[in-house]
């Protein structure tokens, strides 16, 4: 669509404007240089120079605990399917997380569609924010080509010298721009600045691992029996942190939560993880991924190979969260490097 720009000094006003319309969520600082997406009411509460939040924004699209049905068994198996939603503006989402949301979109709109996800998604306004440098040494968005915007937002902000260039990608975004009255038309000078930024990024975001995007799935195919997996298996504690923090992990469990009177209750879904031992266990106690290394390998393949076959895209955004969070120091880039080394 079109573009606009907003002066930096107007940004605070914009956030206040957004917050006056509906709940706004943005990156806020925690201790130890970490961040999370949380409700804000002003620009001052946010840290726009953040590195990937502990949990990705997926928690707004498919919450940790989510009600699917409400039931009442007082007279047989009665129920009502429900979605719990709220209008939400997500502010300052990096390109890697936008890519993560796009991955989830693909999965949940694949037939049979997931209405809970689809409905919630339609209540969320997404405002992206461009990074000009790697967040930290764990990030590997360059390798996955997610350092540049590839859609998936309503508005997208790129920080330039004294303004933000704003890409307007949807009708929803356009009306925000109009209603706020805080944006200006784009001028040539600013367009040039954006070009300079993108050119500079080309130099900065070199692939951290010497492999081309299209060659990645084959690497995993060829190293299925690699010893690298065995070594990861010895280190991995199966805590599931890597899957919970991953923007494209979406596995879940379904549970019933009865109320105290036992007749009414809710059926909910809760994030689950393929790293847990019982995840793939069937009656008779047979488990198809009993060994830690096997589960580790499954996870990597579910990022880099299987989704390529099914959805024609890699399900790693390069956000680096899994490596950042792992206390056993299992590192995604190191793992890919090790696989490449072993394959020779």
């Amino acid at each position, binding site marked *: 669509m079109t573009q606009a720009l907003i002066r930096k000094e107007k940004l605070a006003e914009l956030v206040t404007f957004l917050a006056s319309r509906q709940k706004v969520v943005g990156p806020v600082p925690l201790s130890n240089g970490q961040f999370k997406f949380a409700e804000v009411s002003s620009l001052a509460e946010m840290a726009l120079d953040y590195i990937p939040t502990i949990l990705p924004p997926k928690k707004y699209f498919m919450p940790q605990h989510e009600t699917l049905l409400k039931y009442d068994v007082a007279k047989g*198996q009665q129920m009502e*399917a429900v979605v*719990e939603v709220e209008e939400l503006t997500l502010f300052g989402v990096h390109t890697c997380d936008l890519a993560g949301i796009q991955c989830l979109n693909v999965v949940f709109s694949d037939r049979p569609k997931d209405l809970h996800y689809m409905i919630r998604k339609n209540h969320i306004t997404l405002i992206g924010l461009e990074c000009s440098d790697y967040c930290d040494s764990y990030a590997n968005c360059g390798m996955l080509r997610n350092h540049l915007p590839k859609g998936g937002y309503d508005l997208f902000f790129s920080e330039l010298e004294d303004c933000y260039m704003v890409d307007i990608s949807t009708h929803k975004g356009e009306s925000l721009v109009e209603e706020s009255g805080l944006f200006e038309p784009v001028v040539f000078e600013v367009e040039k600045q954006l070009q300079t930024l993108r050119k500079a990024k080309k130099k900065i975001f070199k692939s951290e691992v010497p492999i081309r995007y299209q060659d990645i799935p084959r690497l995993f195919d060829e190293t299925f029996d690699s010893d690298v997996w065995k070594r990861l298996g010895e280190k991995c504690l199966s805590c599931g942190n890597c899957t919970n923090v991953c923007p494209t992990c979406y596995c879940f*469990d*379904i549970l019933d939560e009865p109320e105290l009177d036992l007749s009414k*209750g809710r059926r909910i879904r809760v994030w689950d993880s393929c790293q847990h031992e019982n995840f793939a266990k069937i009656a008779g106690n047979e488990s*198809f991924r009993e060994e830690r290394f096997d589960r580790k390998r499954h996870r990597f393949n579910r990022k880099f190979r299987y989704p390529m076959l099914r959805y024609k895209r890699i399900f790693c955004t390069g956000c680096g969260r899994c490596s950042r969070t792992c206390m056993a120091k299992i590192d995604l880039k190191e793992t890919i490097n090790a696989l490449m080394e072993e394959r020779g």
Partner: protein
Amino acid sequence: METIAITHSGYEIKRGRIAEITELTEQEKLYRIVLPNDETLDHDPGQFVEVSLFGVGEAPISICSSPTRRDSFELCVRKAGRFTEALHQLKAGDEVGIRGPFGVGFPVVPLEGNDVLLIAGGLGIAPLRSLINFIIDNRRDFGKVDILLGARDSESMLFGGELAYWDKRIDLNFCCSVDQAAPDWQGNVGLLTGLIPGVTLDPLKTIAVACGPPVMYRYVVDELLKKGIPETHIYLSLERHMKCGLGKCGHCQIHDVYCCQDGPVFNYRWVKKIKGAI
């Protein structure tokens, strides 16, 4: 936070009424279930439903009746844990929730006009029974039909009366074997795989369908290949942990496929390519 009521979410259940319960063994019960308003489940043999009891949970269970019998459908459930034990507590007249049918069942179309070799181990007879009765009800559409059945012992053999009927029918070759024989057992003793060499068949005209515990498959496939049956003529039903049945929750994923939507029945040629599938 606003709560919106929705329909067609995929998670809603139909309220199935248990019309009849038959105790097959100490571990297994057969449930005949009727849907409201004379609705037909309209399934394919080999498909499954998610059975649900609010407050307890859900479990995938194969439909073991043939789609040709349309007024109700049957499920054979083994007591395996929390959910299935709760199900075993129910009485006729009680309600269960039903979602589905789900998945890709047995290859009915390719089977038509061909000879059929059906191999069931243990509880694997449940889904195969659907296919067997379907074949019986459309008998002339199929060639020669062999049924091989294996069980731990005669006690755990399911559908005893029906087996005898199949055995009696001249248009079916029925053969069974037990791992451990009681003193009064007259039939074959030994692993199910031991029955395969004895079957006379035209390998290029035969399509084999197997359903049973995962350990069984490797041996069964070996025997079938020895018989000269082409890989593409072999179908296996794979059991995986399943939750949603909608190809989302990830539990049943094998490589890029979801067992619940793309399976549970797969062609062996595909299975062979996938490490760890069997």
